[in-house]
């Protein structure tokens, strides 16, 4: 009691232990199977999608938003604390347990088709969520974390994300040149193939240029795309050797679905937003108003604050626990988990989001990133203000 002073109580991170839930969600397909064994209800094979598509958006609605930021004085210490790194690392073994266990069950579990399908979606979902883990690690600069990022991306066959996200997306974000920035009027189903193809192509070009500068071939083992994809090939080959050929379609389809989950999140992160060109033809820097944000607590916990997206793009190496809410940035009406469900239904998405984009630009849609085929029509409709 002798140390009592009048100073404010030390700040504590309210989310500190909640970040452990990021590990817990990686095991969802297996808990679902456990619940099935216990109750005999096949419904439990679908536990993972039910939680992600309905319970988390519901919690976002009920729990609401947390706009608080850690005080500036603790940021440096908070960023250094190893605990937060280990929480992210620990999600990877959990992810692999679900992937390996799930694939085993799919082949050897003697499942009926709706059980098998539920398991496929569940495992794909954890693989997709693992891209977020790979994302967090891929932005760090230590060798260990960069390797862990590639390992987290292997079950979802998304190794190129390691290259394209940092050196492609972060450079071209909120421009028409970025495959991972969705355009006003572009539905998720138009965006998905454009983004997948564009991202792989870009990742390949980026590594080709880097290696050529060093006088090496793009087929060099130093190509980060090839390294990351090789982990997928080795993993899938080992699983197939162990479980037989039926493991392969399961792994490929869960991976494709997992990848689509990343892309639907990409779809809503920058929808319609665009950096303006400066007089010299280059783009203005990426600023907080070039990303869609959300402070909804439930989704922020299981996506490691990914929804504080403006701060992430302004400061890409900032660790998740220190990402801040900014005032006056574009805000989504629900968390990313709820908004991906909206994105699956284009007419609903346009109805919810298009007015928000128009409002964001104060009606001057000439500043928006619009799907080229409808650009003239949109500009005619809203006028291009100064034009």
């Amino acid at each position, binding site marked *: 009691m002798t140390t009592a002073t009048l100073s404010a109580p030390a700040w504590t991170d309210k989310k500190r232990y909640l970040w452990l839930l990021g590990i817990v969600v990686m095991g969802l397909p297996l808990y679902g199977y456990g619940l099935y064994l216990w109750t005999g209800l096949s419904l439990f094979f679908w536990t993972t999608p039910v939680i992600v598509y309905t319970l988390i958006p519901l919690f976002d609605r009920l729990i609401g938003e947390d706009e608080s930021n850690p005080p500036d004085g603790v940021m440096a210490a908070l960023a250094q604390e190893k605990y937060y790194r280990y929480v992210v690392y620990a999600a990877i073994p959990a992810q692999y347990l679900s992937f390996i266990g799930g694939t085993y069950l799919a082949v050897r579990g003697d499942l009926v088709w709706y059980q098998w399908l539920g398991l496929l979606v569940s495992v794909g979902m954890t693989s997709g969520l693992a891209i977020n883990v790979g994302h967090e690690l891929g932005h760090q600069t230590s060798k260990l974390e960069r390797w862990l990022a590639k390992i987290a991306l292997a079950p979802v066959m998304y190794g190129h994300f390691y290259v394209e996200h940092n*050196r492609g997306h972060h450079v071209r974000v909120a421009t028409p040149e970025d495959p991972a920035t969705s355009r006003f009027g572009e539905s998720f189903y138009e965006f998905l193939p454009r983004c997948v193809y564009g991202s792989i192509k870009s990742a390949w070009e980026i590594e080709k240029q880097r290696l050529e500068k060093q006088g090496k071939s793009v087929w060099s083992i130093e190509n980060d795309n090839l390294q990351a994809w090789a982990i997928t090939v080795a993993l899938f080959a080992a699983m197939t050797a162990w479980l037989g050929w039926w493991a392969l379609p399961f792994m490929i389809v869960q991976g494709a679905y997992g990848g689509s989950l990343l892309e639907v999140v990409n779809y809503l992160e920058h929808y319609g937003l665009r950096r303006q060109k400066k007089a010299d033809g280059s783009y203005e820097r*990426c600023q907080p108003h070039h990303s869609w944000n959300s402070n909804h607590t439930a989704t922020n916990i299981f996506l490691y604050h990914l929804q504080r997206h403006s701060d992430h793009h302004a400061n*890409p190496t900032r660790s998740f626990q220190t990402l801040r809410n900014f005032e006056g940035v574009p805000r989504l009406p629900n968390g990313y988990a709820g908004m991906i469900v909206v994105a699956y239904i284009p007419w609903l998405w346009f109805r919810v989001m298009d007015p928000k984009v128009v409002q964001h630009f104060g009606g001057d849609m000439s500043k928006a990133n619009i799907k080229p085929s409808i650009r003239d029509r949109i500009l005619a409709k809203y006028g291009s203000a100064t034009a």
Partner: protein
Amino acid sequence: MKKWRCLVCDFVYDEAKGVPEEGIAPGTRWEDVPDSWTCPDCGAAKSDFVMEEID
């Protein structure tokens, strides 16, 4: 004159060239670039740059 590379996105800061459009004149040594300056391409902090041994 040295070159510094952004660890996040590979942007290269060339001391000889500077970044005139951001007020950093050609010939500005890395240590004279303000600590608040960030990568023009991706926003990474000055501390996220490494020196590059090139020509």
